[in-house]
């Protein structure tokens, strides 16, 4: 079976955008709930609570162009419905559907209909109403739709090259998003240095765990005590947790090798080389290395290298130089 580069690109972005929508929903949802646990809420505290969300993705300049204050309503609106924010949930779903529409013939009816349903839902008044009255339910719907799409993919999509691009997109985006979720913790300032390792600190780390659906799994492995280095180890280096960065990068590496047809430990293009190399480094890393480098610095470096893989993957398979129409016309007219 052949796969058009444009189609590979669409499949890849389709899953990236769905995964992104899901993670933004997770992030906003957890922060809304976290807000309930905080005391003494004045405007400054609220801003300090929300700002990290937009700062961790580097979206703060755009945000302040569109809103005056980083309060609950503005930030959640920015991340959920604002169409000027290309990573808002609405924008992600619109883009995912555009991509799905271009490759309708390559995905199952079930997947297409679910994306289409989600698209019409989030644009409807009902969605806005639910969001205003019961945000928890609203964000759960977004998450569930994404999970449903993964399940539908699992059980209805042929395991051909197109599938590999769907999966590559999913795990790549998830690695990026888990990174952002952990890094948010770095941006959240504690009220004072006395609070490090204290109740609020633990609460925030628990929120991070919950936003990755890792709350139960963490306790299962590490017991009741929520320790920052344990959470970091779990979300970055866990071998088995399907949202950890290591897990995602290992899946990504496997997908890239499946696409290029090489064995583990080998590569045939730069994407495969970078992915394999990063994976091996993570395999031989421990949480001590992370804290030696500094959590934030470590995550940033990791993020940059993940983006490098994305760029090389695009170069290798999805990119064809834009046709210089004038030149092409001239050449073909000869």
């Amino acid at each position, binding site marked *: 079976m*052949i*796969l*058009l*580069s*444009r*189609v*590979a690109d669409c499949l890849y972005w389709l899953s990236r955008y769905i995964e992104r929508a899901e993670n933004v929903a997770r992030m906003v949802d957890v922060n809304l709930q976290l807000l309930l646990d905080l005391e003494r809420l004045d405007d400054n505290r609220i801003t300090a609570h929300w700002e990290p969300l937009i700062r961790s993705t580097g979206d703060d300049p755009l945000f302040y162009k569109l809103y005056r204050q980083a309060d609950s309503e503005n930030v959640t609106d920015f991340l959920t419905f604002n169409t000027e924010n290309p990573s808002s949930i609405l924008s992600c779903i619109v883009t995912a559907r*555009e991509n799905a*529409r*271009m490759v*309708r*013939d*390559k995905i199952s*009816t079930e997947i*297409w*209909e679910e994306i*289409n*349903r989600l698209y*019409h839902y989030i644009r409807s008044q009902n969605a806005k109403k639910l969001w205003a009255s019961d945000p928890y339910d609203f964000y759960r719907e977004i998450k569930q739709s994404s999970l449903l799409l993964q399940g539908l993919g699992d059980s209805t999509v042929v395991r051909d*090259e197109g599938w590999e691009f769907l999966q590559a997109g999913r795990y790549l985006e998830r690695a990026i998003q888990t990174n952002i979720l952990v890094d948010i913790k770095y941006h959240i300032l504690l009220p004072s240095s006395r609070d490090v390792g204290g109740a609020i600190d633990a609460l925030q780390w628990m929120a991070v765990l919950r936003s990755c659906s890792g709350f139960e799994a963490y306790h299962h492995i590490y017991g009741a005590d929520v320790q920052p280095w344990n959470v970091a180890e779990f979300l970055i280096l866990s071998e088995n947790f399907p949202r950890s960065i290591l897990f995602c990068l290992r899946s990504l590496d496997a997908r890239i090798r499946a*696409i290029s047809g090489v064995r583990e430990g080998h590569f045939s293009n730069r994407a495969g080389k970078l992915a394999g190399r990063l994976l091996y480094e993570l395999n031989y890393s421990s949480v001590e290395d992370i804290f030696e480098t500094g959590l934030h610095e470590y995550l940033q470096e990791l993020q940059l290298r993940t983006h490098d893989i994305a760029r090389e993957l695009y170069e290798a*398979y*999805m990119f*064809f130089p834009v*046709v210089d*129409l004038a030149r*092409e*016309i001239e*050449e*073909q*007219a000869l």
Partner: protein
Amino acid sequence: MLFQDYRTDGFFDEMFAEGDRVRPHYRRLYERFRKLAPDDFEQKRQAVDLSLWRQGVTFTVYGDAQGTERIFPFDLVPRIIPSTEWHFLERGLTQRIRALNCFLHDIYHDQKIVRDGTVPEAYVRSARHFRPEFAGIEVPRNIYIHVCGTDLIRDDQGQYLVLEDNGRTPSGVSYVLENRIAMKRAFPNLFSNAGVRPVATYPKELLKTLRYVAPGGKEHPVCAVLTPGVYNSAYFEHCFLAQQMGIEVVEGRDLCIRDRKVFMKTTQGLRQVDVLYRRIDDDFLDPTVFRKDSLLGVPGLVGAVQAGNVTLANCIGTGVADDKAMYYFVPRMIKYYLDEDPLIPNVPTYLASEKKDLRYIMDHLPELVVKSVNESGGYGMLVGPKSSRREIEEFRDLIRANPRNFIAQPTISLSRHPTYCDGTFEGRHIDFRPYILCGEEVSIIPGGLTRVALRKGSLVVNSSQGGGSKDTWVLYGDE
């Protein structure tokens, strides 16, 4: 009771003959629908609309920045064609497409029909879609129109007439297939003993046709559907057909030409394409030959066609045969090339560029339908009896300024069909577009697109102008 107040109002009604007698081929459906409560019907209708909406069987409203999408309204009362009638239509349509393909081969080669004076040369030369640069080019199996969507209507006597031949890139066939699926979902029990012939084989037949015309009779040709892209209103159909045929949907940017051959850009490099079922008009196919500003096409594509390295379906330049003025000559073509009498007549047509006809048109404008030969989709048209005096006078000036651009036809009182309107059945005007494939043999799926003018009294069935569609049943028997 949905039929309670139904009146035929003196029109030819597909379901009811004189004296409100149900025609034999509608009897079973009538018995079933007669017993339906209006509420049940309404419920089914809403369920079908919702399901079409969910499936995204929608078209984008042009010129709407919000990207508003609509479903093509679907009426749940099916149109039924009995077997004998269908066989007659099949023969008539087969005859017609054979003649059109002979004409196209002739017109791009020796132009015998012109030299013999059967078709005046001026009409050929002035046809907008005539491509003189294509003269002398050989096309596989001498087939130019592979897919034809001929529009048929019935007059007040029930006589079938050809309204126009769509020999360029006719669309709508996906609705034929989707409507049938929707209908089966809404009335699962209706089909078990209704004797309806299936339509689902269309994609298979289409693929067979495409393979048959591969360059040099290549045995395992690579076929693809060439689409203008996701913003085209028929994009859904392009994907639908490609998926059912198991071939790729490609856009111009997915293709490139090397050594006068067409290649797709894939993840594993370039891959040659042999046959393109193209759904892009001639004008946009190749900016080196046609419109220079077209970003939809592929530079060099025409060169690849001329070199015989790729087949386009339909071929370039078929528009000369479905020109509305050329339509006038199709019955002559049938006689000329096949030595047969046309089975399905044309609507009587007057050519404004003929002196005698022009006088008649000018004298009878308020009774006539005037059409611009280059427009389709119900645009550029005057329906005399439904127009104001000012609109008529405006058209009079247009015709006088450019007679070659206009034809006129008497207003045909289109047949009507019971159609669900606001809780009851009312008569609405319909037409019919069967889909004709011309490959090794001519094959026509038993069915087609019945379009219905949903606005009361309206004769315009186009989706852009308030039209909807119906499932079309061709029966195994006559009742």
